[in-house]
């Protein structure tokens, strides 16, 4: 007796959830109108329910198969997300160079070959490159260094 394709069950459930949310929100918050005179809510509502229906089509056959849940690579995932978040939240307050340094140092643990010393050197090199190319070369409105106090 197959125990269910866990991966597609999860995928299907997510689709159904998003679809229902979109459909219900669109029909209740926006003017739906009639099919011949479509309001802003009609298209999203139909699409939302359609997505939910497609989710069911993914979900239903999954119960009749077996499959395991995939295993995320939590280490690299956390490193990359936290690193880029650090950049996004610090770049306006501290400037481009510190943001790049934070980005590189937090992302480094994702790969064993990038030890702290190498990461520091890489951060310096990237900061130099970014300042030269983006700030001076392309005129991007990103200050290399900002004093927050």
């Amino acid at each position, binding site marked *: 007796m197959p125990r269910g394709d866990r991966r597609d069950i999860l995928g299907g459930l*997510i689709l159904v959830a998003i679809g229902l949310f979109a459909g219900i929100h669109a029909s209740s918050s926006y*003017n739906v109108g009639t099919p011949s005179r479509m309001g*802003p809510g009609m298209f999203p509502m139909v699409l939302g329910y359609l997505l939910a229906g*497609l989710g069911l089509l993914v979900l239903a056959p999954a119960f009749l198969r077996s499959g395991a849940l995939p295993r995320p690579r939590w280490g690299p995932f956390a490193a990359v*997300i936290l690193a*880029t978040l650090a950049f996004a939240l610090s770049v306006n307050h501290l400037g481009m160079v510190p943001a790049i340094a934070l980005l590189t140092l937090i992302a480094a643990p994702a790969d064993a070959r*990038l030890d702290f010393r190498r990461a520091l050197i890489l951060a310096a090199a990237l900061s130099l490159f970014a300042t030269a190319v983006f700030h001076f070369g392309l005129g991007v409105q990103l200050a290399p260094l900002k004093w927050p106090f």
Partner: protein
Amino acid sequence: MDLAQGFTDNLLLGLSVAVSWNNLVYCFVGVFLGTLVGVLPGLGALTAIALLLPITYHLDPTSAIVMLAGVFYGSSYGGSTAAILLNLPGTPNNAVSCLDGYPMSRQGRAGVALLMTTVASFVGGSVGILLMMFFSPLIVAFALDFGATEYFAMMLLGLVAAATISSGSPIKGVAMVVLGVLLGLVGADQQTGQMRFTFGVFGLYDGINLIAVALGLFGLSEVIASAGAVRGGEIDRRAITFRSMVPTRDDLSRSRLPLLRGSAVGSFFGTLPGAGGTISSFMAYALEKRVSREPERFGKGAIEGIMAPEAANNAADQTAFIPTLTLGIPGNIVTALLIGALMIHGIVPGPLLMTDRPDLFWGLVMSFWVGNILLVLLNIPLIGLWIRVLAVPYHLLYPAILMFVCIGVYSINNNYFDVLVAIAFGVVGYGMRLLDFHPAPLLLGLVLGPLMEQNLRRGLTIARGDFMVFLERPITAAFLAVTALLLLWAVWSALRSARSPR
């Protein structure tokens, strides 16, 4: 003959645009960067184009597209280098070239492989460009009669085709398209001004930024999946001399027909939405193996095994522009981004593009010739440069990629909110990888969604609310019929998957 005269007029116009100093420089920059990202595994044409898009805002639209297109087809030239030398494809288009390219380099024939794949890429690209030159005016002439319902039905067909034809479960692909269209609706509704799905977040009032989504969904999720993972074989440090590149007569005679077959396969599949260089190269390889009198040679360094796929993927790269520029239907993510870039410059892609902006259209087509010639020059004499580039290890590369993504997205609006959007889609993209959903249909839906709604509304308004108009107009009905068939196939395929694992 008036038609021929008009045609040569267009070619001359295009040539004059393509060889202007400006466009020559941008073309060179484009194909150079394209080869660079093609050579580097882990960094693709898509990321590079998405990063360059904000920079092109200040450029003339023709120059912008010339450069971005150069990155696109240039990457297929460079990708074969890594495939042959490292057994790691630089881009997915070149994955098949590993099968016979790497054995060739182990036999000491890397030089020949590198030279011949460049030749194959040039031949394939040329065939694609020729087809584009001759068929585009015909398609445009046909499509000029299109009304709003035809546009809607055609976009719908394009999206559904892209969702179902490309790899993976068709029903999941359609789901991704629908999700993409929904995401495209976030922001102000063009017709009524109603804010949709913004939930009071100011950064969403203008909609979800296409580049942030593209870079997050593809760039960031790729880094998450690859950082710290094991890489391919070592490069043979022996220098690749020019003498070692000379092919034998046997090589040349074996390559002739695979070149033609590969170009044909690639040209055909390149025009289909959802199919592109990757499928084309696989198909070309399979075809060669099937028609070969010595199929056992394949996988052990058979030159046919690299000539056909390389010709195919470059032909596909060029013909992918046919539906994009004549109908406004993107066949893959890159052309979707290019359409996005055109829209930002105020140019609406579609059949009118050729008549409204012949300088852009034909300038771009002729720039393909310029670009392909430049690429041959870049890939053969400068091969030593690319081999050195290949030596950069991924653990030094991925923080750089993250930096490019962050700064690139930030520079669009000088707003860190967009970077947060990119990060969010990085999470979504990684989740999608794990759950086996493909991101390309989502991006296509995001680009085309608002246009589809516009055309649907316009069509219904013109028909005064009568839905039968979709069945009464023959072209619309034809598009919808094919769409329905594809959808039926997707549903049937989903139900059938209950029996056995996909």
